[in-house]
């Protein structure tokens, strides 16, 4: 038997952090040195897309502008993801500190936390922690953080839709380019990072890039916080080293009857049992923003897919054709096949459609519907038909 590659890490939630001390130490370095540390660590965005964080900071810092912003994306809306909530609840000052480091590097005077509408109950404690943080660091840096509430639309987690929402407009993704590093919030250069990314950036400042780089694989450095749910006896939040195989993950978290794991939420991929061994969790394999949903053999994968499609049909912003109409057609299409109103071969038509959505949708939402759709339909075809 192979050694289980799964390693629990305790970097984020562990130990009280003397944020001020770490910030003092960090601020004594030059901006270039800080960016180089983050680059050197290999940290990639933890929201799912995996863009190198150091590069994002570098591009924003280099963009000529009279004003720049740092925004913490706390619109944690991916089904099955609940780790940012835990981070904001347990170690908010690390999030603020990560934002402060970024602010110094890019020259931002204002930062915003865009908080998921459903997390409103976190607001009083979060604001209290923020007030304390502002008091603690006001002599260190001219930087203020504001918390802005979202209103519950999934699409507002997409960075450019988030900017629109923050500007008081309808939350619809923008055309890219320009990217946020050039024209983000209020069309100013903006760093927008996931909650977890900012905390890791801060941890890198505290421990140095090597401590982070030692972990994980060449494509997926470091550790990551996972939200484990579904048919598992130990659902919860776990910080694990990246690069583990799904087989080892299931050994640890499964209930012994695991049929499939949905990696990365509704926008992610469904991996069937036969592919557990070969599947690496990380950017070289199947990436995830943190959601790991375990399904055992009692589950109907048709129902799982239908549930995702219902979600997408409602949460598409509706502006672009492939996503708005495509989601409706995928859902009506699998229903029709299941009911026998359409022949099984119609699934091929739908797979082509999902490919069009991946290729031609305006933003990541429409582009990623195909992930769950094709992975479920291809791997559990008989369940779609009978």
């Amino acid at each position, binding site marked *: 038997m192979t050694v289980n590659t799964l390693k629990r890490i305790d970097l984020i939630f562990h130990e009280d952090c003397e944020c001020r001390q770490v910030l003092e130490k960090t601020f004594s370095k030059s901006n270039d040195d800080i960016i180089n540390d983050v680059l050197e660590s290999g940290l990639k965005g933890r929201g799912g897309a995996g863009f190198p964080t150091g590069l994002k900071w570098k591009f924003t810092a280099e963009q000529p502008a009279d004003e720049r912003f740092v925004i913490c994306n706390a619109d944690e809306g991916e089904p099955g993801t609940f780790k940012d909530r835990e981070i904001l609840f347990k170690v908010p000052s690390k999030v603020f500190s990560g934002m402060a480091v970024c602010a110094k590097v890019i020259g931002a005077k204002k930062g915003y936390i865009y908080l998921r509408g459903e997390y409103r109950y976190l607001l009083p404690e979060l604001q209290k922690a923020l007030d304390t943080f502002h008091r603690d660091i006001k002599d260190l840096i001219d930087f203020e953080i504001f918390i802005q509430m979202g209103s519950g639309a999934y699409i507002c987690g997409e960075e450019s839709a988030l900017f629109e929402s923050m500007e008081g407009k309808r939350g619809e993704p923008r*055309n890219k*380019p320009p990217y946020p590093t050039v024209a983000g919030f209020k069309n100013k250069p903006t760093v927008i990072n996931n909650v977890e990314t900012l905390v890791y950036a801060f941890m890198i400042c505290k421990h140095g890039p090597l401590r982070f780089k030692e972990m994980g694989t060449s494509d997926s450095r470091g550790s990551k916080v996972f939200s484990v749910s579904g048919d598992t006896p130990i659902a919860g939040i776990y910080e694990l080293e990246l690069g583990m195989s799904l087989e080892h993950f299931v050994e640890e978290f499964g209930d012994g009857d695991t049929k499939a794991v949905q990696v990365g939420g509704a926008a992610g991929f469904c991996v069937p049992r036969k592919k557990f061994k070969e599947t690496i969790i990380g950017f070289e394999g199947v990436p995830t923003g943190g959601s790991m949903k375990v399904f055992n053999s009692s589950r109907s994968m048709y129902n799982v897919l239908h549930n995702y499609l219902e979600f997408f049909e409602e*949460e598409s912003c509706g*502006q672009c*054709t492939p996503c708005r109409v495509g989601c409706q*057609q995928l859902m009506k299409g699998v229903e029709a096949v299941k009911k026998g109103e359409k022949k099984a071969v119609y699934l091929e038509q739908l797979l082509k459609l999902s490919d069009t959505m991946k290729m031609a949708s305006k933003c990541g939402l429409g582009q990623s519907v195909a992930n769950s759709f094709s992975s479920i339909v291809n791997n559990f075809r008989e369940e779609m038909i009978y």
Partner: protein
Amino acid sequence: MAKNISLKINGVDVKVEEGKTILDAARNINVHIPTLCYHEDLCVAGNCRVCVVEVTGARALVASCAMPVSDGMDIHTNSLKVRSARKNIIELLLSEHNADCTQCYKNKSCELQDLASEYKNTGEPMFIDLVPLKNYTIDNFSPSIIKDDSKCIRCQRCVRTCEELQHVSALGVAYKGDKMKISTFFENSMYDVVCTNCGQCINRCPTGSLIERNYVDEVWDAIYKDNKHVVVQTAPATRVALGEDLGLEAGHVVTGKMVAALKRIGFDSVLDTDFSADLTIMEEGTELLTRLKKALVDKDPTVKLPMATSCSPGWIKFIEHTFPEYLDNLSTCKSPQQMFGALAKTYYAKKRNIDPENIVSVSIMPCTAKKFEADRPEMRSSGHKDVDYVLTTRELAIMIKQAGLDFDALPEENYDSIMGESTGAAVIFGATGGVMEAALRTAYEIVTGREVPFENLNITPVRGMNGIKEVTVKIEGTVPEWSFLEGAELKTVTAHGLTNAKYVMEKVKSGEADYHFIEIMACPGGCIGGGGQPIPTNMEIRKKRTEAIYLEDAGKPIRKSHENPEVVAIYKEFLGEPLSHKSHELLHTHYKERKRY
């Protein structure tokens, strides 16, 4: 000088300026990429996705309308991936669209239909018909605009038009996902919201989702009735655009052929709104001079300056909603259409000895707001509905086609009399700056006894497509009666498009500007770009129509309103003088505040 970017489109080397899009580059070399949400007049949306193309090395296809070119791009506009995605997207749009084409007002003039035809979407539809699953509604409460959600493809051209060009934002996006739709405040009818009925959304709607309420059948019915005397008036801007709907290039002046067509259709009298445009100048010009006199000589604090034109019904509804505190600054003159209507059932009826009860008054307008205007309670001063039916230029084209006329082969004929005489000053009402120019030609002459000091009477600074044109005219050498204006500088501003109108009004409101006279036309370019004009519209087409208008002006033997012999006659025989009691009764009105919500 912008940097040049080198790229390849379908293997052909192209050089374009930095900042241009892939779509621009493709058009430069005559490569056709289909579009739906794209419109030259509007900001880029990139949401229909039919213009996607493949850029070698890119992870996904890109929307060519939204993607800026960069050096070394290798673009394919018709690759396997592109074709497959494009066909899928067209089918998706069709699955959500009530494709009852033969029953559609826009049949054969629909961009979605064209695209479906281009891609031969025939036979069994690729996807499930979603139309029966949606609670689509038709909003037909407005006398001007009908909105049919079942035809909507959510391209948001209308939303962008209403917001960017007009700053009205009567239309917006509501809901998300499968329920996303184009709607109004609280989903009220277009009739009950801030909509100005300008119809610019209709001009840019690619499908039959936004159309004018058409009165073609009602007008035919009136023509067929023996006991009815049907008079028709034609607005200045119709004669430079009608040809576009009948197979001619933009910029043709078709006045004579239009008159011939109307006569063959069977109108009893074919008359000209130009006549009442000249009358408007007499009334409005006198009103302006009177206001100036009251303000400068009598020091009357109740006089409202600046005075604003009142010809454009879209502008009237806009000011009622948005700047009601400035309603008294509007000229009390009715629009030329409504002046004509009031006179058709009084002066004309009397002269021709016809019972006004039996007169049906029809107008051909470049405008959809005119339909709403004709329905206003203020517009019944003849004792009847002054204008019974308003047809757009497009609707006239429909009638001409239905009548089986070969438009281009028609001879040029003259308007009937009375109320058919026109001047160059009246014709230019159709372009932005035209009312201003016509008013100045007359007012300057009244005050100084001399013609305006511009070569050939062409007051070029008020012409053209600049959104806001500020022009100051110095008055010198006045006749004794108007000597109080000696040396005065008449400050004027001309704006077109309600976004520019709003900007001007905000300047007035803040005290930043001290204009005397404001000309505002609700539509881009003035009436030549009106919401009732042939589709499509863009800057190039509007410029061609404008050139045609000024060509018509230059060729007129009479180019000043006060010299229109029929205008001189009506004052002599019927009205007395400008601003007389009779004028006030028939030709002037007041408007009331409307709530924004």
